[in-house]
């Protein structure tokens, strides 16, 4: 009886195995196409409710991926903005260099002391680069200051926002001359003095170097007029300027290799000896 049962199991197993092999071969030969279509249909119906879960899981994965991408793109955008700004500044400087009637030396501002008490700047050009005491330092916006100290590699610049800074200036539209100085009211505000009250000035007019002091070449923009006040008890007016060059954001600049006319200097010395 047991042998019969074992034989039955053997036969059954053999039949099933042969059936399985037949299915494999028929599948390979395309004999089960209809059954495969039916099974795919059934499976699709069964999996349809679960597709929502898969979509949700995929959405979570996509969300994480997009979040990471967003951070990377924000970072890249920030860097591109910085590069764009630097590019604009460098282009302006390049144009300035090409337009300037005097040879200029490109420099980088390596240190700033703009606390207000004794404002100074340090640039990475010294005597080896052609920098000399007295030369003007400008950028594409306008006058920054004047070199007051140099060594072989670096120079110290007296910016316009220093209480000892003075420059002979003119209002471009009227040819009225005066002296620009810093009145310590704000870091970017200057004062233009010694212009007679008889000369009519307007807000927004441009003030630039006059060239009369024999220290700066003429025509370097300094700032624009933002306020005009008549001087008390005197015949001149006090003019408030806003400097064009922003000392806080300036990172690159040019030294204007303007050398004072020696004949004029000799004449001034002779005049001082006379009086």
């Amino acid at each position, binding site marked *: 009886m047991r042998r019969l*049962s074992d034989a*039955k*199991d053997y036969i*059954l*197993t053999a039949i*099933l*195995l042969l*059936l*399985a*092999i*037949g*299915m*494999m*071969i*028929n*599948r*390979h030969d395309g004999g*089960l196409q209809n*059954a*495969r279509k*039916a*099974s*795919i249909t*059934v*499976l699709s119906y*069964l*999996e349809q409710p*679960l597709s929502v879960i*898969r979509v949700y899981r995929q959405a979570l994965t996509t969300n994480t991926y997009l979040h990471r991408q967003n951070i990377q793109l924000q970072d890249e955008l920030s860097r591109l903005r910085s590069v764009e700004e630097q590019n604009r500044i460098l282009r302006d400087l390049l144009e300035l260099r090409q337009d300037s009637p005097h040879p200029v030396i490109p420099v980088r501002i390596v240190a700033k002391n703009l606390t207000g008490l004794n404002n100074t700047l340090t640039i990475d050009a010294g005597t080896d680069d052609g920098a000399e005491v007295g030369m003007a330092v400008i950028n594409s916006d306008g006058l920054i200051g004047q070199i007051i100290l140099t060594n072989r590699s670096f120079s110290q610049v007296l910016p316009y926002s220093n209480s000892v800074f003075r420059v002979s200036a003119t209002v471009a539209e009227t040819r009225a001359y005066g002296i620009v100085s810093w009145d310590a009211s704000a870091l970017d505000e200057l004062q233009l003095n010694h212009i007679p009250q008889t000369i009519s000035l307007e807000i927004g007019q441009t003030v630039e170097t006059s060239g009369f002091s024999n220290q700066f070449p003429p025509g370097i923009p300094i700032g624009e007029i933002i306020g005009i006040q008549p001087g008390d008890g005197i015949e001149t007016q006090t003019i408030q300027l806003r400097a064009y060059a922003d000392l806080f954001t300036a990172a690159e600049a040019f030294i204007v290799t303007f050398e004072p006319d020696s004949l004029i200097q000799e004449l001034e010395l002779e005049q001082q000896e006379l009086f």
Partner: protein
Amino acid sequence: MLAIGAVFIQAVLLRHLTIFNAESDLVLLFALWICTKVPKTEAILITAFAAFFQDALTDLWGLNLFSKVLTVFILHNFLSRTSENSFLFWQIFLIVAGASFLHNLFFYIVSSLSGVFASEFVVISLLLVSTLFTAILGGFLHLVRSR
């Protein structure tokens, strides 16, 4: 009904829960369990029925039928003999791992011989990871059932 339920769970749910492209095999666990409950002939028939549906739903026509029927045919005597004992987790784990390895070996051989499937691509995941995965699932179900 249990067979159909196991096949549906396998085809719809467990098929998507993969580790290193390996999936656990609930239908095999069902086949091993059925070996401890019914005589050999019935066990082979029920397993064949479940394996056929599994093949149909996973488009692996004949592979599961062949390997599962052969596994049940070989292991039925051993499983039915030892079913009277109560097992610890690791014992169940080892038994299921051995059975799963045997099943997956048959599966691999027959799929390689048929030449239709890229069996060499899944040899490690099939013989190793899937075996362990199925053994872990079997041990877990044993723990749940015993409590």
